[in-house]
């Protein structure tokens, strides 16, 4: 989650720094691009010399250089180790990005994902040679369906947004097979994550926004009004629950009923399922489709942006339209249904090559089995408790966006910064100096200058207390009028504020060799 485009053209920071000749400073190593450290013809691999067979490339052989840099193995290693140290990470500290669920990533799961029977198996090997991998998929499906109380799950979606696509495609498949091809309107709360409207449109639906009420939930009057405008074009609703304000949609069952009565389906964005696991099953709420971000709720590592996995559970109404492939259990073991024929004749088709992100299946299943039914429930409760603890501990110095307790994340707005000249962005950057990754900012859009804090269950009370201490300190500092401190922040990060405006205005998206190549001065 991320600022709604507040590109910053930062002011120069005047820090009292002693320059070094090397550009490095202690452990902080100055690091060029690989292209600038290259020694052409060097390589970090040794390979046997080719024997020189006659080529079968026809007339298509590449001639000339590709232009890739040449680095030995030690140079490569050092380059990326240095780069890595310029990153924040869960393993370094609190990473309270609301909606992103940055929880602990157990290394057991990394080990398991690398077992040869999972990592070194080809997706198209004969089915009798990959029974173990299929069994993992089968078992994972069982866990997910049981936790959700849903009769089916499509594993292939590659991330949350892909899962949304899956669910909405299934809804469209069902509508179309029922001859309801006029149903193309999808209701989406204005607090929704950007992927929701984007997905709806990518499936050929139109988006109709519904506002939030002053409790941060769907405004039921507005919702009923939308339906009373006429329901024959209603395809369904996309609703996040708990929603992006970190609140449980308490009218959710009524919403489900109403949308079903209107002839539509209920897509639930399950990005926040981590607030419910083991305590609430989406199938008990009337959900027709919901993706689960294995890379959030079930802890597969974010990896600086991915990969993820977005298995999508489906209701009885939609399951016939699930995408291929999927695993089935037969008398002799496990098999794959890979084509839109036979039992899969109503499938909406294939979403991607092969069978989805196996590497995430193993990790997520390992995570779930490690926790077990008891541990998953406890994790959910701890996540909710941690968020409420943070909210309760900050509500006197910051301004919670809504009244009452929250679920897994605490939402604040920027009213407490009124007249301080400090904005949410500045506050966030000052958190960096305190050693924290900022919370999600400017999302959800329904709240001004939003600050969405999701501590997850992985934080200890001691860490939270320290975090709270810093937040209180900053809030008080802002109110005390020390805006300069915030505008200059971060001063302790590897870089000071970056000029996003310039980046977007004159995009430089790749390295290009310097026009002229004068002998580089040493």
């Amino acid at each position, binding site marked *: 989650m991320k600022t709604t485009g507040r590109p910053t053209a930062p002011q120069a920071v005047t820090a009292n720094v002693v320059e070094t000749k090397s550009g490095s400073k202690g452990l902080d190593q100055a690091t060029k691009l690989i292209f600038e450290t290259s020694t052409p013809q060097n390589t970090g691999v040794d390979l046997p010399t080719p024997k020189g067979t006659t080529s079968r490339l026809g007339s298509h052989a590449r001639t000339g250089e590709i232009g890739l840099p040449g680095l030995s193995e030690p140079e490569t290693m050092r380059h990326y180790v240095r780069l890595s140290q310029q990153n924040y990470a869960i393993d370094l500290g609190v990473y309270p990005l609301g909606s992103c669920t940055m929880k602990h990533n157990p290394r057991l799961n990394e080990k398991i994902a690398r077992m*040869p029977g999972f990592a070194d198996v080809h997706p198209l090997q*004969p089915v009798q040679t990959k029974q173990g991998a299929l069994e993992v998929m089968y078992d994972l499906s069982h866990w997910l369906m049981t936790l959700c109380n849903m009769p089916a799950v499509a594993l292939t979606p590659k991330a949350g947004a892909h899962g949304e696509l899956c669910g909405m495609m299934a809804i469209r498949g069902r509508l179309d097979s029922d001859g309801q091809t006029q149903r193309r309107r999808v209701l989406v709360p204005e607090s929704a994550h*950007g992927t929701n409207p984007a997905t709806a449109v990518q499936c050929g639906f139109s988006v109709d926004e519904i506002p939030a009420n002053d409790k941060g939930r769907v405004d039921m009057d507005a919702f009923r009004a939308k339906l009373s405008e006429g329901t024959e074009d209603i395809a369904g609703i996309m609703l996040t629950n708990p929603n992006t304000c970190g609140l449980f949609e308490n009218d959710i069952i009524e919403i489900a009923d109403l949308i079903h009565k209107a002839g539509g389906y209920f897509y639930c964005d399950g990005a926040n399922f981590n607030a419910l696991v083991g305590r*609430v099953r989406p199938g008990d709420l009337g959900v027709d489709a919901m993706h689960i971000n294995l890379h959030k709720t079930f802890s597969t590592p974010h990896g600086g*942006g991915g990969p993820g996995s977005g298995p999508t559970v489906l209701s009885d109404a939609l399951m016939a339209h699930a995408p291929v492939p999927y695993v089935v259990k037969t008398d002799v073991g496990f098999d794959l249904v890979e084509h839109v024929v036979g039992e899969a004749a109503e499938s909406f088709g294939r979403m991607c090559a092969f069978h989805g992100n196996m590497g995430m299946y193993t990790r997520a299943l390992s995570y779930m089995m490690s926790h077990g039914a008891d541990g998953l429930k406890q994790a959910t*409760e701890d996540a909710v408790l941690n968020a409420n603890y943070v909210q309760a501990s900050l509500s006197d110095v910051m301004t919670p966006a809504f009244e009452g307790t929250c679920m897994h994340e605490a939402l604040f707005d920027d009213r407490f910064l009124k007249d301080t000249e400090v904005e949410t962005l500045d506050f966030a950057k000052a958190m960096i100096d305190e050693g924290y990754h900022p919370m999600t900012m400017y999302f959800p859009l329904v709240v001004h200058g939003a600050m969405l804090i999701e501590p997850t269950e992985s934080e200890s009370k001691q860490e939270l207390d320290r975090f709270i201490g810093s937040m209180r300190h900053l809030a008080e500092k802002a109110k005390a009028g020390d805006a300069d401190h915030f505008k200059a922040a*971060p001063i302790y990060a590897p870089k000071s504020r970056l000029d996003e405006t310039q980046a977007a205005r004159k995009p430089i998206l790749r390295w290009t060799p310097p026009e002229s190549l004068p002998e580089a001065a040493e």
Partner: protein
Amino acid sequence: MRYLPLSDQDRAEMLEKVGVPHIDALFEDVPKSARLDGLIDLPNHQSEAQVERYFAGLSAKSTAAGSVPFFCGAGAYRHHIPATVDHLIQRSEFLTAYTPYQPEISQGTLQALFEFQTQVALLTGMDVANASMYDGSTACAEAVVMAVRVARGKKRKAVLAPGLHPHYAAATQTLASTLDINVNERGCRPNRDAHVIDHIDDDTACVVVQSPNVFGEIVDLAPIAEKAHAHKALLIAVFTEPVALAAIKSPGEQGADIVVGEGQGIGVGLNFGGPHVGLFACRQKLVRQMPGRVCGETVDANGERGFVLTLSTREQHIRREKATSNICTNSGLCCLAFTVHMTLLGDAGLKRMAALNHENACALADELAGINGVELVNETFFNEFTIKLDRPAVEVVDALADKGVIGGVPLARLTGGEDDGYLLICATETNIESDITAYGKALKEVLS
């Protein structure tokens, strides 16, 4: 539970601070009918050793590619990945970071992405590349949608070459189906790609050609580009094996406008099909229609070079229903694996690796082509080729598996159509001589 730091005493103190008597109070918004009593019917928590034992047991129930003579390609390739790659991508700072939305403390990921984008651009011969898609097939689908967008929706026809990987065609079809994009597809057959030009007309937004194609054939893209451009259509060039691009002319050189493909072959293992990494590159002028994240260079407040995610006004989190794609999470860590492996290889290493792949494939093709009942389909190929057998390929592959050889991918497996004996076979630098002779021997036995 080992992953949960709160003690019961912590919990009690925290509940008190929150001002509620019991954890249940925090779930009171949940409608009564949906509140669960007790535990879900699944096993309770287990020790590391127990979990590990379970997975080790399942792992042993599949045949690891490295344990047998192995010859599958068709979109996923087995190459040797240097130990450095796997080491680096497991570093906490890369593995447990989110998308680099706070650039001041994400320069590691960002600079690596900038290097990745540059490498992809160089390899494909394109101006720019994005920071990855889920995989090659979704990149392909998104490229078609983008082409229609570039045509401002006025042209809605996409012509797919017969040599396009059937999974890629299917994924494209799925995405296009709801967007009124008319996908012109005519079955998956070898040696037909040149004929796509017959289907390009003024309604055509794009033509999608894979080279090397799913049969391993190397396709001459230049005439197709020419015809496409004559009709103001875009040529989308596709590849499934990035190593091939080190051996053959880049799609950019041949006139492609968008190049998409699978990056898995460099740095990323087979992983039973995922995670892989979709590469997406295009001409500079198309960049604002490109889906997905991009990283760009800028300066910080002290004038030092730094990197940020940029052009985000194309993306869902800013543009919502007007975004170029709904993609959010991509294949970040696989990009890093790709980049590290690519950096290790360099020009010299990548070219040599490609040469070794080609040599092994040539040796294998020669070995197999001499067998009764085998017909080599390809005139050209890089590291995979197709043979036509005198009986269903699925039967042959099963018989080979019984003999301990994983012999390739029957075309019918991909298309779901009739099995007319086409078998897709791949050899890489990981195959040693004895693998190749073992294959020859086993196939001879199976076919005799």
